[in-house]
């Protein structure tokens, strides 16, 4: 992507906010990820970088005072510098989802609202690849883009107090997985047996911003098996390298 003018602003005493144009676009995401790569290489382990859609929040970790002007210069140098584009390995993850009525509390209602049969809804939901624009809000919560208009419906009028971990939902322009039991207002159409966040792993979240997700329908019997496997730490996930 051609370089774009970045907006760089202080964000309190310990952080800098870097913003790209206010759009949800894969080209912007790629530009952000390239920037993060080169900045991290040049300034290792003194910043924490949090990408989301069109921004990177950069948190200064040392206990010394953050010098905003110096940071801004470093950010611009890193962004405009002629670096070898060192791409992160990026993957398309195939995540199993069981659309059984046991988990899919809103499946029938959602299909009716969207004007599909249940089978057609599952077919559409599993046909697309969704890009991960960032991970935030809760540990392992993916902001996924690329939901087609035909699958967009408003969130539920009343949020539920307890949405089960692994629940797969639709709400507005978003689809995604609840990484933990939590309150939530999304329309729940299935459940993924693979934990997206597991603190006991060296890499607690296997998905990274820039990866893609595709859902794969599985039966209740397969769900039960995958659930047991993942509880003992076996995931058997299918992943396809994106930049091979």
């Amino acid at each position, binding site marked *: 992507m051609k370089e774009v003018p970045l907006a760089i*602003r*202080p*964000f*309190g*005493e*310990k*952080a800098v*906010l870097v*913003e790209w144009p*206010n759009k*949800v676009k894969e080209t912007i995401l790629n530009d952000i990820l390239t920037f993060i790569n080169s900045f991290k290489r040049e300034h290792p382990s003194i910043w*924490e*970088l*949090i*990408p*989301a*859609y*069109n*921004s*990177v*929040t950069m*948190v200064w*970790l040392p206990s010394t005072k953050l010098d905003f002007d110096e940071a801004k210069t470093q950010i611009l140098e890193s962004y405009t510098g002629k670096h070898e584009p060192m791409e992160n390995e990026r993957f398309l993850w195939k995540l199993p989802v069981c659309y059984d009525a046991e988990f899919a509390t809103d499946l029938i209602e959602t299909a009716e609202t969207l004007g599909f049969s249940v089978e057609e809804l599952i077919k559409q939901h599993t046909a697309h690849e969704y890009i991960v624009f*960032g*991970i*935030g*809000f*809760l*540990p*392992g*919560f993916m*902001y996924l883009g690329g939901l087609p208009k035909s699958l967009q419906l408003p969130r539920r009028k009343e949020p539920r107090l307890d949405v089960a971990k692994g629940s797969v939902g639709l709400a507005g322009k978003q689809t995604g997985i609840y*990484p*933990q039991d939590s309150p939530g207002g999304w329309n729940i159409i299935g459940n993924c047996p693979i934990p997206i*966040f597991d*603190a006991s792993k060296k890499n*607690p*979240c296997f998905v990274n*911003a820039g990866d893609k997700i595709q859902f794969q329908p599985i039966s209740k019997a397969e769900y039960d098996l995958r659930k047991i496997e993942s509880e003992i730490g076996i995931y058997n996930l299918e992943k396809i390298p994106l930049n091979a």
Partner: protein
Amino acid sequence: MLKFLKSGFYTTLQDFGRFGYRNIGVPVSGVMDELSVKKANILLGNKGEDAVLEITMTGPTLIFELPTYICLSGAQLSPTLNNEPIENYKVIKVEAGDILSYGKLESGFRSYLAVKGGFQGEKQLGSYSQYNPVTVKKCFKDGDEIPYAQIKHYEPVITELKLESHLDRDTIEVFRGPEFSILTDAQLEALFSKDFTISKKNNRMAYQLEGEIDGHSESILTSGTLPGTVQLTSAGKLIILMKDGQTTGGYPRVLQLSEAAISTLAQKRFGDNISFKLS
């Protein structure tokens, strides 16, 4: 071991936080009131960020199974050691079998117990700070135990600190947040002239304020948030994110608390008043 005979209202193990995992949605966590904790740790000759117990509103009852030295700080919770009153910001020697308990909350909201060498416990992703689901435990329960090192002798450089306390402060120093520019003159006037009351919805994740200002219809793309970020909802409610707060959010971030102001706010409870002062 330090044993919890009673756990208190909400007692957690905290160091200064979990860094390097916010890009996968893990909040930084850590002590809410860093100022109070640093002082206690310094008196004990610890590193400023060594792990302490964060005690909220109602204190626990604790029995020490090994001799060591402790220092209390933060909220004034009428602590006693073997039923004898003790003071905050003093190095105190404890023996095996000593019982530390707490009484009436006199000032502040969060009290700290630091021990010579720091508490140990379940370390996850580089930090002792309890935050479920990263750590198994969310907070301590009756009967829990937590390890610390036996220290038979320690000669403190200073034994007592008498410093100005931030507990009585009610001015919250803020900087312009990323979306400060969406604020109208009326909203600015309200933000910096009114007092706001801490609502019942306050915890380690966020403090919601009572006393709304005008709402808005601005929407932003989800973007990073920090401890001390003041979000303005479309209905005009103010929500201040704290140490266990979400790592990203979609509400405009109109103000950002100074680091010292986060410590000040951490000592406020339901019904307390605060006002904002722009730096």
